[in-house]
């Protein structure tokens, strides 16, 4: 406590951040009174309207990486980092075109429900549950990192782990009280809070320090800058490299190799490979982000909360609009930050460009607007809180659903009563929340976006092919689906782990190997370009080899996935299955 008192805490920043937490908890309690049945907890009674659901999905999706990480990446890497916000938003199009409607029409509580229902295989349910938990924990870690670093920013001197524990405890309490219905309201509110928190400071800042296009125009321009611009430190990329495509983000592997090229010939060879390799990196990144968005289990589970397939499609379109509008703003912070807070280039991680969103509004204090600077900084901190709190809530519901509904309700105690399942949901939330906090305390070192990118690449190579092929190919067998999902997902994981070992845990032999083989480094750092086709290829080959095991009623299953709901085939299918004792 004494440590806390000794800190120099801006009262506005602390008050607005704490208000966000208080409102989140209050809304969770209020909604808890309205969540009664198991359906309310798992899929919000399947009665969430398009507007609410779109806001809630957007609120859940815009994580710490979106709110803080994208701006930091744009400031650090320039143009190439723009692919992140664009693909985060546009990945939803693939979801809309190929997956959202059929998945909702099939009507299951969770993705493992879909996996079992589509292939009549309890074993496949178990495999799918493991992947939900696995990808979920991977995606939870960067949210926890965001929580730890933001609290450390608000309360300088507070240890990183304390932020992780506090935020983890608050969200776990919220989810265990209100389940899916409880967090729908909270997440919808948090989307609008994040939108307000990211947009308002930009408009105020631009009116004082100059507009987006003026600051962007000041880079690599022969004409004198129309706006104030501080000198760039040595660590900052040069204007031309920062503004143009194929900059430091995508050429890092070749640049590292160039530093220790053994001969002028080798150097020339690497120079010639720089742009083609960079292009390869860009395409692989695009595939990971677009397909990964369509395969994130905590986003997919929300489609079951729509009343029907048409509502699921309308919801997806509104999500694209809501998050698209949001993603216009973080790059503005990155561009303004390059001109006005270039000192952030000299620090790394949470103290570096990642905190440009929190740092920029404080500049107004130096422009004779001290109060305005504090209030706006407080608003952006509140937005950052909303970001990691809402995403963590969604992940917790998805993972708790997998544990309580799939493992407890379907595997361990299939005869359990609805009351027992509700109790299991609450206890599962506490177990998953506790585990997530424990894991979160271990990831202080890795970069937020790096961790998020890993989760996307694994989802892109496992769940996306599973869903896409299961929905559109009648010939898929359970063995084919499992082989593709496990083969693609685990291969992507193994490749990413290799780069993590050298980057985060400094394994020297691996670092040397990457310097000698920059192409392999790119293919391991961004594995989607080969892991997604590998997964789909495995699904096709193994399904063809086991074609005798295609589910007998596959025609009926495909009709349920694709036929308009007005035909009532779903009800017919359920009756038929109940008649057979399923």
């Amino acid at each position: 406590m004494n440590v806390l008192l000794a800190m120099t805490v801006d009262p506005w920043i602390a008050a607005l951040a704490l208000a966000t937490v208080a409102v989140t908890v209050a809304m969770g309690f209020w909604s808890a009174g309205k969540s009664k049945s198991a359906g309310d907890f798992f899929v919000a009674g399947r009665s969430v309207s398009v507007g609410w659901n779109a806001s809630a999905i957007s609120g859940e999706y815009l994580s710490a990486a979106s709110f803080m990480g994208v701006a930091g990446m744009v400031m650090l890497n320039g143009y190439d980092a723009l692919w992140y916000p664009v693909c985060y938003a546009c990945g939803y199009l693939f979801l809309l075109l190929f997956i959202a409607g059929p998945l909702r029409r099939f009507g299951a509580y969770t993705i493992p429900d879909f996996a079992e229902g589509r292939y009549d295989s309890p074993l496949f349910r178990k495999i799918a549950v493991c992947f939900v938990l696995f990808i979920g924990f991977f995606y939870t870690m960067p949210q926890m990192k965001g929580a730890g670093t933001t609290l450390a920013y608000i309360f300088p001197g507070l240890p990183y782990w304390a932020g992780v524990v506090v935020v983890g405890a608050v969200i776990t309490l919220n989810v265990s009280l209100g389940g899916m219905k409880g967090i729908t309201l909270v997440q919808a509110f948090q989307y609008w809070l994040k939108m307000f928190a990211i947009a308002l400071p930009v408009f105020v800042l631009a009116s004082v320090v100059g507009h987006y296009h003026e600051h962007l125009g000041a880079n690599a321009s022969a004409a004198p800058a129309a706006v104030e611009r501080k000198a760039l430190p040595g660590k900052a990329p040069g204007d031309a490299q920062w503004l143009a495509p194929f900059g430091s983000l995508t050429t890092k592997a070749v640049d590292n190799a160039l530093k220790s090229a053994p001969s002028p010939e080798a150097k020339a060879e690497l120079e010639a490979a720089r742009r083609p390799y960079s292009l390869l990196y860009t395409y692989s990144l695009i595939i990971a982000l677009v397909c990964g968005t369509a395969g994130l289990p905590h986003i997919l589970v929300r489609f079951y909360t729509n009343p029907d397939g048409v509502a699921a499609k309308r919801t997806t379109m509104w999500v694209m609009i809501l998050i698209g509008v949001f993603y216009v703003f973080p790059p503005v912070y990155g561009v303004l930050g390059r001109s006005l807070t270039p000192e952030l280039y000299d620090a790394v991680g949470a103290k570096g460009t990642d905190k440009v969103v929190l740092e920029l509004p404080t500049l107004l204090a130096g422009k004779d607007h001290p109060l305005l600077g504090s209030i706006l900084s407080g608003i952006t901190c509140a937005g950052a809180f909303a970001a990691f709190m809402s995403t963590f809530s969604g992940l917790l519901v998805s993972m708790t659903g997998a544990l309580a509904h799939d493992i407890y309700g379907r595997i361990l105690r299939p005869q359990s009563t609805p009351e027992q399942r509700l109790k299991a949901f609450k206890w599962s939330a506490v177990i998953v929340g506790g585990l997530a906090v424990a894991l979160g305390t271990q990831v202080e070192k890795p970069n937020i976006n790096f961790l998020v990118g890993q989760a996307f690449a694994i989802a892109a190579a496992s769940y996306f092919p599973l869903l896409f092929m299961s929905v559109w190919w009648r010939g898929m067998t359970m063995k084919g689906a499992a082989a593709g999902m496990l083969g693609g997902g685990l291969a992507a994981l193994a490749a990413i782990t290799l780069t993590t070992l050298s980057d985060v845990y400094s394994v020297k032999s691996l670092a040397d190997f990457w310097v000698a083989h920059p192409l392999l480094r790119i293919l391991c750092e961004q594995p989607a370009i080969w892991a997604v086709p590998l997964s789909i290829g495995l699904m096709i080959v193994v399904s063809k080899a086991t074609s005798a095991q295609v589910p007998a009623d596959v025609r009926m299953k495909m009709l349920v996935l694709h036929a308009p709901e007005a035909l009532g085939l779903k009800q017919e299918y359920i009756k038929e299955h109940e008649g057979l004792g399923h």
Partner: protein
Amino acid sequence: MKEPPTDHVHSDAFLAKLMRDQLKLSIACALCFAVALIALPLLNYWQPELMARRIGGFTLTWLILGVLFFPFVWVISYVFIRRSIALEEAEAQAAKDGSRS
């Protein structure tokens, strides 16, 4: 497992047409999106001067990727949803007509 009844709605022909029409619409929309996603890095690669041309402070490629890409995708999704809902209504009607005949 009992096979479904063999009336028009449960027939292979109905399912095949249903999936073909839906997939055709989804692929047409996905192609518009994919062409843009593939073309932009290629334009950056082969036409760097053109893509670096300034438009009100933005470079052309920054303006396309950082601003214009979002409304482009919204238009595709709007067109898809309108057509997909119309397609579903037509499919439901065709199923009813087919069952009657």
